[in-house]
Each structure stands twice: as structure tokens, then as C-alpha cells.
């Protein structure tokens, strides 16, 4: 959710029960403004909160100058890591909502490395998880397995989890962005919200990331797509089927999508208005039990 419309967004997302306390809200509004200035971001998004045992992480994302063209945003998510420090979209984290620190960009390596860590976050970026793994060692002809203790910093895990959540369940309504014939993606200024009938369908929502499934579609399936709007993967083909809970709240004035795969992610959109956004408030753990629970 955009830091500037934080209060409205929090109100709209409050149905999931996870908000911010008044002092956090106030400090966020202040400190994100300063973050925007200091890092020279064009836009700052409040991403959410990861609940730790000792303390919570507050996460914000900064989008630099050209970020209104979300291709840069996607770039950050997808290929941006090749650029290293020039990565335009940065993730900043904070424990007290006032002092923000920049998180390194996520890499494949990190995701693999941290996938072995289970359990809750501590709330201390320097905390180190210990993981013992068997590594095959060969000394001459002998091959034997040795237990190696791997230290994984919580900061690494945090980065990788944020990246995974962004890739898996970041949502944007159809039509909010459009792709120009030359490739760059812009915010669609004429987007005026989904209609009610559209808002109830998962096909009207896209994964906010580089398309993965789109290329695998057959020509027949692509025939009905509008190339300027349907350039991302819709949610309806997510596996397992039913990994989203879509609800109309307040009569029909608000549509709320909750991810069951990453419990804690709430997407909201008020149909026929430009208000939409998502927030993650959760433990930072994937719900791997999902197939049993449906």
C-alpha cells in the first residue's frame, strides 16, 4: 500500500484484524516521508509486517524515479538482482518504525540457502539460525558424509522471504497497469477500478511480477487476451486451486483477497475506485499444509 494513503489503506485492510497501533502509524507516516527524501525514492510503499518472537519487522519498499513504470518494479523482482546495487526498488526494514535500514537484494542462492530454516522469526536481524546438513566429502577414494553446521543470518532469511512473498502473492487488479507497444509498463491513469462482476473473479487479478505462465499458454488461450492489459499471470490458475479466499465485504463495497498459501497477505480493492493495495502481516511462513486444509 502506498505510504501516502496509508491510513485509508489500513482502514480498508482492517477486516483481517491486523493493523498498526496509533503510534506506529504516526511514526511510519513520518519516517517513510524521510526515507523517501533520503533515498530519493519516487514512491514509498508500506509492504507489511513480519511478526517475530521478540520484535516485529516493518517492511517498506521504495520505488525510484522511474518506478511509475512498474517494469522497473518487476525488474527489481525478477532480473534486477543482476544489477546489484543499482537495483531500483529497494526494500527497507525497520524494527521500531523510525530507523530504516536497507536490505540487500534477494538472490536465488539466498532462497535456496534459507529454505531449510523452519520456525518463527526472532526479530533480530543478526540472529543466526543453525542448520546441520550432510555434505559429501571425498578424501582420495573415500567418500564419507560429514555434518556441517551452516549459519544462516536472519537478515538473509528476511530478504528471501520478502522476495518469495512478492513473487508468489503480490497482487494487482487487471487494468491498473498497461503495457505500451514498446514494452515499458505504465500505471494506467484511466483505471477506474474493476466493475463489481469483474471484482468477484480471480481472473481479474494478476500476479505483480514478470509473467511465468503466460508464455506457456497456447495460441488459442492467448486469442482473447488484450496484449496491453493481460501481460501478467492471472490468479485463477494458481496451484493448488483454491489458494485464494475471495470475499466481498461491507455489502459489496470492498473485495478482499486473502492468500491461503502465505497466510497474512491481504489484498483489498474497492470496486469502481482506484483504491487497491496489499499488506502482509504474518509470521513469514508459507502454509505448506494447504493441500490438506482445503
Amino acid at each position: 500500500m502506498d505510504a501516502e494513503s496509508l491510513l485509508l489503506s489500513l482502514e480498508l485492510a482492517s477486516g483481517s484484524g491486523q493493523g498498526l497501533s496509533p503510534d506506529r502509524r504516526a511514526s511510519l507516516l513520518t519516517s517513510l516521508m524521510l526515507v523517501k527524501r533520503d533515498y530519493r525514492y519516487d514512491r514509498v510503499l508500506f509492504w507489511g509486517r513480519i511478526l517475530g518472537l521478540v520484535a516485529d519487522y516493518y517492511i517498506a519498499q521504495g520505488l525510484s524515479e522511474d518506478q511509475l513504470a512498474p517494469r522497473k518494479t518487476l525488474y527489481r523482482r525478477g532480473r534486477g538482482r543482476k544489477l546489484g546495487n543499482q537495483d531500483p526498488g529497494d526494500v527497507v526494514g525497520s524494527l521500531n518504525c523510525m530507523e530504516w535500514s536497507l536490505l540487500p537484494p534477494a538472490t536465488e542462492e539466498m532462497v535456496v540457502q534459507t529454505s531449510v530454516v523452519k520456525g518463527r522469526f526472532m526479530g533480530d536481524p543478526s540472529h543466526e539460525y543453525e542448520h546441520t546438513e550432510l555434505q559429501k566429502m571425498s578424501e582420495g577414494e573415500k567418500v564419507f558424509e560429514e555434518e556441517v553446521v551452516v549459519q544462516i543470518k536472519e537478515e538473509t532469511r528476511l530478504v528471501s522471504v520478502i522476495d518469495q512473498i512478492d513473487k508468489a502473492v503480490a497482487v494487482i487488479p487487471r487494468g491498473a497497469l498497461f503495457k505500451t507497444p514498446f514494452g515499458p509498463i505504465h500505471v494506467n491513469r484511466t483505471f477506474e477500478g474493476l466493475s463489481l462482476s469483474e471484482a468477484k473473479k480471480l481472473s481479474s487479478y494478476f500476479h505483480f511480477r514478470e509473467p511465468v505462465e503466460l508464455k506457456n499458454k497456447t495460441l488459442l488461450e492467448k486469442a482473447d487476451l488484450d496484449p496491453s492489459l493481460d501481460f501478467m499471470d492471472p490468479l485463477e490458475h494458481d496451484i493448488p486451486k483454491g489458494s485464494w479466499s475471495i470475499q466481498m465485504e461491507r455489502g459489496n463495497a470492498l473485495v478482499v483477497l486473502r492468500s491461503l498459501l502465505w497466510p497474512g497477505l491481504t489484498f483489498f480493492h474497492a470496486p469502481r475506485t482506484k483504491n487497491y493495495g496489499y499488506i502482509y502481516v504474518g509470521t513469514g511462513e508459507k502454509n505448506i499444509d494447504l493441500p490438506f486444509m482445503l
Partner: protein
Amino acid sequence: MCVVSLRGNLAWGCYGDRTLQLAEPLVPRNRLADLSKAATLPFYICIPPSSRTSFFLTPSMEDLTSPKQDKENQELGEARWPWEEIAASSQDPESGLSEPLESEQWLETGPQPRSSPPQSPQSRASPPLNDVRGPGAPSPPSPAPEASFIPSTLALAGQQLAIPWQSDRTTDVNPKAETPRSHHLEQSDQGESTAPQTCQSEGDTFQQSQQTERHLYGPEDVSDNNSKQKELRFNIFQEEDSNSNYGLDHTESGISEGAPSLLEIAVQSAKAYLLKTSSKSGLNLYDHLSEMLTKVLDERPENAVDIIESISQDVKMAHFRKKLDTLQNENEMLPIYETAEKQKALFLQGNLEGVDQELEDEIAENSLPNVMESAFYFEQAGVGLGTDETYRIFLALKQLTDTHPIQRCRFWGKILGLEMNYIVAEVEFREGEDEEDVEDEDVTEERDDGDSDAEENDEDELPRTFYKTPQVIPKEENRTGANKYVYFVCNEPGGPWVKLPSVTPAQIVTARKIKKFFTGRLETPIVSYPPFPGNESNYLRAQIARISAGTHVSPLGFYQFGEEEGEEEEEVEGRRDSFEENPDFEGIQVIDLVESLSNWVHHVQHILSQGRCNWFNPIQKSEEEEEEEDEEKEEEKGEEPEYMEQEVGPPLLTPISEDIEIQNIPPWTTRLSSTLIPQYAIAVLRSNLWPGAYAFSNGKKFENFYIGWGHKYSPDNYTPPPPPPACQEYPSGAEITEMDDPSVEEEQAFRAAREAAVLPVEEMGETEEDEDEDDDSDQE
């Protein structure tokens, strides 16, 4: 028709023979010019034929129109002219070829050297834009329906332009294009002398057409110089209109003073091309472009060029939208109204109870919790629903307490579901008011018994099963153990409150083994392994019981054990299950509550693995039952353990510091709600075992709250229990075990051995003669 338009708040207008909005009642002519100059914005004044000189528009111009004026108009009838445009804006080096420019200049500054007529680029561009609307505009007597006084010059001017276009389609070139400057001056003088005057466009348009005819046949008839000048202007706009040539109008008008040129013809053919109607959609590009430009100029989006494609699409879509409006809106809006209607009842209920006496009684025996206060504290903790939703829930709880005999009520929390959510209220009925429900449940139990009896009767023919159903653990009585409270749920505030059935131990035991999402519909069957006894309402009730038992905590000392309960009883039971509020509770420092978990205690009984809070000895009861039954079972009973160890859970009001860790994860997280203002902060407790369960305390008050999916946390994957081992069909033994077929040698050896054995047998006796004989015959 007369329009003066400025962008912004200043807009004067008169349309048809009605006077429309007028920002300022009277603006002197020179002032008008100043204004427009100051704003450097274009504005147009269209003078109707009836009013040669009116630039001043008043709120009630019709009234102001003097009969004398009308008379004058009639006199000037022949010299009617449709309108005059004044684009009074800044200086533009323009060659003065076009008459409208002159006229505007004349308005501004009176007589001026012809060599430098001011003209802004904007005003130059606007006439053709207006002109674009031409083809789509209706016939002169009924002006364009979209007429509205938006502060856009173009929309207004466009409509007016329609009139000349319609009234005179012929693209004639006015031979009398030359008009002396002095006429303008004259006219302006006249204008000053006349009173503020109205514009009468409807009449004018007729006159206008008259005039144009006249003009066609012989412009020489026109006697008045003014009229000549006006006529000229009219003609120029006719030209512009028919040519529809952007940016060319001025040069065009200059050229057209001579003879029709090649350029003009080319322009006409281009326009004809643009007006060609598409055979597919029935639209033409000319209309489309004009609509697009109108939209752009009406809405004035920033960087319009970037979104021109979308605008084009929108304009096209607008053609289709209208037809569907009625159909779609009706359906789409319905649920909103329904909800609003439902919730309206919540807001009305307060007004219905009017009598003061009743109100006082009610306040005295109030069972309604102060939800808003708790919500305020939880907001400090950063959890909780929005204020609006909380208040609606508050009202819904009030409705619940008003309609049921409830002694105590509490907002328990919210459980998220796939399709709908549950709002859960925890209530305690007044003494003796909840009997009816007990009966209902007894009936269901009896029915179960009936089924088992029927099965027993059928047993004669079927093989008897050795499986003995384990002793059913009876559910706890209302007001005790897991059924201490009654729970009501509704899907949304204003919806009907549904009472959840009381929970049975079997349901709790199974609920511990499964993990399913709630759907939001109570009657949904739970498809799971192991099979859950009941539907979603039972599962929900079981989870509520588990969550309450695990997470309902209060500051140490807030509750104390009831004094009336005897010491002896305590010894017998080993535990006490009733408590009351401690009147002497003095509160605990918030900082102590944060720092030490031992200052928090559970005030809901722990549920044993049996599924009950108070242990039930199944053997004891089975003995009683079996006295009545046949001996067979008693024999079997001998195999069962004589004594089952009594399960003992932690007693009530156990500090939560004794809770078991979840694989090195502490079960609770405490913190202060605010570090900025710690002196007024509250202690917040978050359960890590049941994510979504919170408790707060400000030292004296406390509250528990749950919002989440209703699942227990486990760092490991959920693993459904393995299916039981396959049932043994028969005892495995030597007789029925399959053996290899004997080989020939073995057979021969066997035969030899047998023959040797048979002989002595035959000698010994004749009992098995028959069979042996058969065998012998076979062998021989």
C-alpha cells in the same frame, strides 16, 4: 444565443431563451476585456441577432429585455446574424486576414490599427475545434442536448457553431468580406448605449436561417453595415465548418475571399473522407475525433497524449455502455442494499425502546460488554478490526443480548473463512434458561443409540464382529468444562446469530488431528481423515473450545477460587473448576505484566487429551453398564487394563509461564504497546501457539481476543495420522498357509511311505474301509 465563458469560476452564460448561470450579474464591457486579458484565456461572446450589442448578461435577462429592444431587433431583422465570436486574449502577431480577429479586438480595445490584431494561439485553434462538433449537432430550433455551462469554451462554442453549420451548409464565399473598421466602432458604441440585454437563441436561429437565405440570394440587400460585418463573420465560420480544417481557417478565410482554391477542395474531400461511416461499427472518424477532443478538453487530463489510446477506447465503449446500464446496475447493486437494509435494523433498535423505566432496568442488568473500549485497547496493541466494523459488531451484540436471556456476553473474536467469516460471541445464559437446548441434543444421542441396537438385532445372520467400540466419553454438562459457555456466531453484523451446538470430547479429539479451513457456512460437511463427527458448526465449536482453553489468560489475582467450594471436595477432585472475580484485586504494574509471564494465568480449564476438561473414567462407567449386560463381555473385560491412569491437566489459574514451549519457540510474546509513551502503555500478550490470539491488560482491566484462521501453530508440516493397519481376516497358521506343489520324486516317496503305512492299518482295523478302498482302487 449568447455565451461568455471563462475558464475557472467565471462563467457567464445564456442559452436558448433561458438565462442560465451567471457568475457576476453585470460586468462592464471594458472590464470583461481586462478580465480576459488578465487571465490570458480565451473567451467567446456570441451575440444573437436580436441583440446587436449585448455583452452583459444578467441573471434574469429575459426580464430585462425591454420591449423597445425587441422592436429594435425587429427593425434590424434583416440584418440578423447568428453570433459573434470574440476571442479576447493575448497578443499574437496575426496578419489580420480574418474578420473574427478584428471583432475580438474591437471588443477589447475599440478601434485599432488593423495591422496588429491580437490573437492567442489558443483562440486560433479553438474555432476549428468548435466546428468539429458540427455534424453531430442537432437542428437549429432545438439546440444540442448536452448544453451545459461547464467552464469550457469549446463545448459551448461548439454547440453554437452547430447552428450556422446546419442552417447553411452551402460553402459559399462571401464576396462582401471587406468590412470597414469603423463599423465595429459604431457597433460597440451602440452596444454601450443599450441596456444589458438578453439573448434569444431559439428565435434567433430562425431568424438566422432567414438571414442566411437572404444572404445567399443577395447579400447586397443588407443595408446595415453592422449586419454586413456580422454576416461576414457568419460566412467565415461557415467556411471553417465546411472545411473543417485545423489551423487553416484563418488563411482559408483569407484565401476564400477570392475564389475557391485547390486547397479548399482538398480540404473538403478530406473531410468527406473523415465523415465516411464505418460499415462495421457505424461510427465515423470525424465524430469520433470530435468526441475524443471534447472529452480531453472537458476533463483536461495531464499529459493527455500518453493516454489518448485509452480515451479513444473509452469513447468507443461509451456507445455500448448505455444500453446495458439498466440491466447491470440492478443486479450489481442489490447486495449492497440488502446489507444496508439489514444493518439499518441494528441502528434502529435503540430507538424502539422508549420508556425510561425499562431503560434504567436494562442498564442495571446490562450484560453487554464495552466492545469499543476493548477495541480501543487492542488498537493500541496494533490488532483489531476497524472502528466501523467493531461498532457494527457492538450493535449486533446488543441485538443478541436483547433477544436472548443472557447474563454475560463477550466478543470472543473473528474466525476467517474461505467464503465468509465468523463473528463469535461468548455468552452465559441466565440460570435455568438454557434447558431447551439440552433436550435437543439428548434426542440426537438417543437416535445414535437406536442405530446401534438395530445393528445388534441383525447380528444373527451376519458374522459377529469382535470389534468392541471403545467407551464413548460423554460430553461435559453445560456450564462445565469445555461447555462452560455458549457460543453464538454470525457471518456479518446484522446477520442472524446462530447458536453453536455444545462440544463433545470426540469432536475435540478429532479436531486436534485435522487441519481444515473454515468455509463460512455452518452446515458444510467436514471432509477429513480421521473423519470428523459433525459438520462445520461442530468443528468451529471444537476449535473455539481449544483456542479458549489455550489462550484465555488474565492477570494474576484478577480471579480467585470460589470460597464456597469446600476443601474436601477439592481433595476429591484434585482440582477446582470455579472461580470468581477477586474484589480485592489491586492491579499489577504494566511493566511487571510485560516482564514476567508468571503474572498471567489461564482462567479457562485445560482440555485433557481425552477431550474433556474434567477427567472421566471410562472403566468405572463401563463396569456399571456391564452389570446389566451378558457375561460374555465381562470375560473380555478381563483382558483390558483394570486401571487407566487418570489424566491430570494443569489446574485452573496456572501461570502461563508454565506453558510448554513449541520446539524451542516460546508460547507467548509480551510487549509494551508503546515505547514512546511508556507511562500510559498497556501490556500486550500475543500467543505464538495460536497465531491471532491476543490479550491486553492495563493493569486492572484485561481482555482476550482472537482473530485468525482458527488453526494451531506448528513449525512442522501437518501430517495426517496414518490409516490403521489392515484388519486381520483369519489367523495365519500351518493349515491355511499355501505350500509348493510336490515334485514327482516327492510324490513317489510319499506314495511309498503311505503304502507301507496302509498295510499295518488294514491289519489293525476296518473302520476306514470305504475311503481306503476308494484310494486303493484309484491307485490300482
